């Protein structure tokens, strides 16, 4: 195949359609397609990967036996443990603490800080990370955090927007906690010194998000999660709370009657295990984007492999809404080096429009995410109005230059430095040319069910953040995930701290693991699959085929 000729970052053949988009921009400046009716939404959702045929199966066993979940999730929930416990002396703890937090994104870091604020001595807290403290989805959140704090807005409006977007499946008590705590979380971040976008008079700049009926998105340019996370991490470091990195929890321990009492950690670099006893465990392990459900690329960080779902479920925790997956409408579709990377919804909140090959705006830009993503899939694969890239992907344009047309020159420079930088690295100027997008696997909508304090049905086990389920129902809105992590990280930390005051250390056993293996065998699950997965496999097939283990 001859080398393609590139003009301003795009192969020459794609420029024809780009010129159509650039030419029609003036006409589209004041035109926005109508938002869909409930019936139109229902129709387009038929092409959503969650609702298109196939892709799921019912769990054969466990607390959620009979529930449909995506195939790759079922594969992990119906898999044998990495260790059977015989090789490990569980009775001897290398470390005993009161509160162990597993996972160091926003939720886990908030939980550790709030447990400390609530009276747990810092040396009785341990934060464990599979990778670095900071390898998480939180740090890559771009667009914003919702909080209903303007006079027009209200927590009940936030509640209604969220439950409508979530297909009315949201758990009302946790959703109420989310919207009522949101302004308090903003206050907490202000006290810790996070820097949010503000108007000249000191009020927050607040933007639209998909499916919101009021502007309530608080942002830090397009580095919102980075700013929130690095502030919390700096506070965590400033207090000297202990942590272990590159040490995933590979199994929880229970006391034999169902209570969680600690975990076995595995040093990814040396291969050594460590047993940690803890009066309570808070799982904040994030989601499952790296399972590439339905073969989609993902916005998620390297470690998003559903480990928390596996550990919690083996210990008896109940999941909910684990059948739904969020595909972010606008993942990068070109160039190939950044396929699947997130293009924040804030771009559409600021006026960018999805546009097809012919330069037509075909969808209201701010539908809830599942509806918006489905419209893009329909435009590419049903109506055949997409553009095909050199590597064979289809996408539609996101007309980013429209942002500066609507808001004035320099707006992209100020508000979207991360997006602009990412494209500039591949010779594309998103201020002048549109960018190609297609939905990308973004978020685990469901997860472990909790009460409003993050408590699960398993004694001694709390969860917070993406690993939990209920608050977003079957589809999360933009800006509710960073909020979720901090609302429930904080609540879990406070509530766990209260619990340890009256709890003693429990015996550590693998009884739940043994009985889980028995259930697998009884259900006739014959497989060599083992879980948790810990890391996805991206090594080249040629290299893998020749690997031998001799040392």
């Amino acid at each position, binding site marked *: 195949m001859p080398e393609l000729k590139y003009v301003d970052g795009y192969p020459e053949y794609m420029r024809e359609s780009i010129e159509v988009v650039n030419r029609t921009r003036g006409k589209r400046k004041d035109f926005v397609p109508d938002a869909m009716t409930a019936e139109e939404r229902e129709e387009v959702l038929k092409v959503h990967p969650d609702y298109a045929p196939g892709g799921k199966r019912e769990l054969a066993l466990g607390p959620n036996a009979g529930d449909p979940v995506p195939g790759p999730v079922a594969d992990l929930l119906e898999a044998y443990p990495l260790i059977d416990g015989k090789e490990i002396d569980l009775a001897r703890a290398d470390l005993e603490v009161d509160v162990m937090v597993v996972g160091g994104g926003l939720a886990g870091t908030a939980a550790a800080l709030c447990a400390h604020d609530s009276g747990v001595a810092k040396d009785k807290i341990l934060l464990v990370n599979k990778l670095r403290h900071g390898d998480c989805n939180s740090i890559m959140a771009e667009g914003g955090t919702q909080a209903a704090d303007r006079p027009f807005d209200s927590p009940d409006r936030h509640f*209604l927007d969220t439950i409508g977007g979530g297909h009315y499946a949201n758990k009302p008590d946790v959703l109420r906690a989310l*919207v009522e705590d949101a302004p308090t979380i903003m206050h907490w971040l202000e006290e810790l010194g996070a820097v949010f976008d503000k108007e000249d008079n000191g009020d927050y700049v607040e933007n639209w998000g998909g499916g919101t*009926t009021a502007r309530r998105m608080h942002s830090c340019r397009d580095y919102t999660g980075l700013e929130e996370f690095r502030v919390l991490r700096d*506070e965590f*470091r400033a207090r000297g709370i202990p942590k272990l990195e590159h040490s995933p929890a590979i199994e929880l321990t229970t006391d034999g009657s169902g209570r969680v009492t600690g975990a076995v950690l595995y040093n990814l670099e040396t291969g050594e295990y460590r047993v940690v006893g803890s009066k309570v465990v808070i799982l904040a392990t994030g989601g499952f984007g790296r399972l590439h459900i339905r073969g989609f690329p993902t*916005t998620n*960080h390297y470690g998003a492999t559903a480990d928390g779902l596996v550990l919690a479920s083996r210990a008896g925790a109940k999941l909910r809404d684990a059948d739904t997956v969020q595909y972010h409408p606008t993942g990068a579709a070109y160039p190939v080096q950044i396929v699947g990377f997130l293009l924040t919804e804030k771009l559409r909140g600021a006026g960018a429009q999805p546009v097809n090959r012919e330069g037509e705006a075909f969808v209201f830009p701010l539908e809830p995410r599942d509806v918006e993503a489905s419209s893009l899939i329909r435009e590419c694969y*049903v109506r055949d109005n997409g553009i095909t890239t050199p590597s064979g992907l289809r996408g539609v344009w996101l007309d980013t230059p429209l942002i500066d047309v609507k808001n004035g020159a320099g707006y992209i420079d100020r508000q979207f430095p991360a997006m602009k930088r990412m494209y500039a690295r591949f010779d594309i100027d998103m201020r002048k040319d549109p960018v190609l997008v297609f939905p990308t696997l973004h978020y685990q909508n469901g997860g472990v069910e909790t009460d409003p304090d993050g408590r699960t049905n398993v004694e001694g086990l709390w969860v917070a953040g993406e690993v939990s389920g209920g608050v977003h129902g079957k589809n999360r809105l933009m800006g509710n995930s960073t909020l979720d992590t901090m609302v429930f990280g904080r609540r879990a930390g406070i509530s766990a701290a209260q619990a340890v005051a009256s709890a003693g250390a429990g015996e550590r056993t693998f009884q739940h693991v043994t009985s889980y293996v028995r259930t697998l065998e009884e259900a006739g699950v014959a497989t060599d699959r083992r879980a948790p997965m810990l890391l996805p496999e991206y090594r080249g097939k040629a290299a893998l085929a020749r690997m031998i283990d001799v040392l």
Partner: protein
Amino acid sequence: MGNQTGMMERISESTRSLTTGVDTKDVEHWVMIYIMGRGYRVPADLTIMTAMEFAGYRLIRSCGCRQGFCGACATIFRREGEYKLESALACQTRVEDGMSLVQIPFSPADAASYDIASEAYAYSVFSKHYPEVARCVSCNTCTKACPQDLEVMDYVQSAIKGDFGGLTEQSFDCIQCGLCAIRCPAEIVQYNVAQLGRRMYGRYGSPEPAHLKARIAEIEEGKFDEALDRLAGASTEELEKLYAASERESDG
């Protein structure tokens, strides 16, 4: 609406090499790169990170978000025949033929122990926690090393002047990858200095909005309890009606 099962398979097939690892038979163009001195032939359209994986490395360090936000994958490299040492994020940089590279998985540096509520909003906060900041010789090596193209030396100078607003503006896009600190001849840890400075600005230089405080007070007084009680107890049918009737704030 057509054959939707087939549609999902077509989508999945188009991204297969990105989700399951690269298969050699799909590759058209190749380059040679040198990972810590050893040569590997890799597909030309990969990033440094995916090229290392193609070569057979299973990354544990130097790989985090994979999208340019977390700072885990700091990398330094030289192009063939050039004297200049370049820095980059492995996940954001396409491989080039003849590139010789190594990753910097960790940057040893202590972060300050402090309580933000009891620090002075003045230059002294830097001299107290990071006194080495005064050793800056304005050589600009940090700026040249920054993969985000920030004016690192300028924000260090803002710190020395006690200009918290300027420091915040100049350092805001810092992902704390550590490349500046590794190269600094004055041994300043620029990204920690900036972190301290931004938090001080956020707390003391950019006051909490009045409308936020007012809303928190309203919630505490129970102003929204009745509306939330009603929503939390409503049936799906009632919620559907309320949702359909909910009017969007005017854009004006």
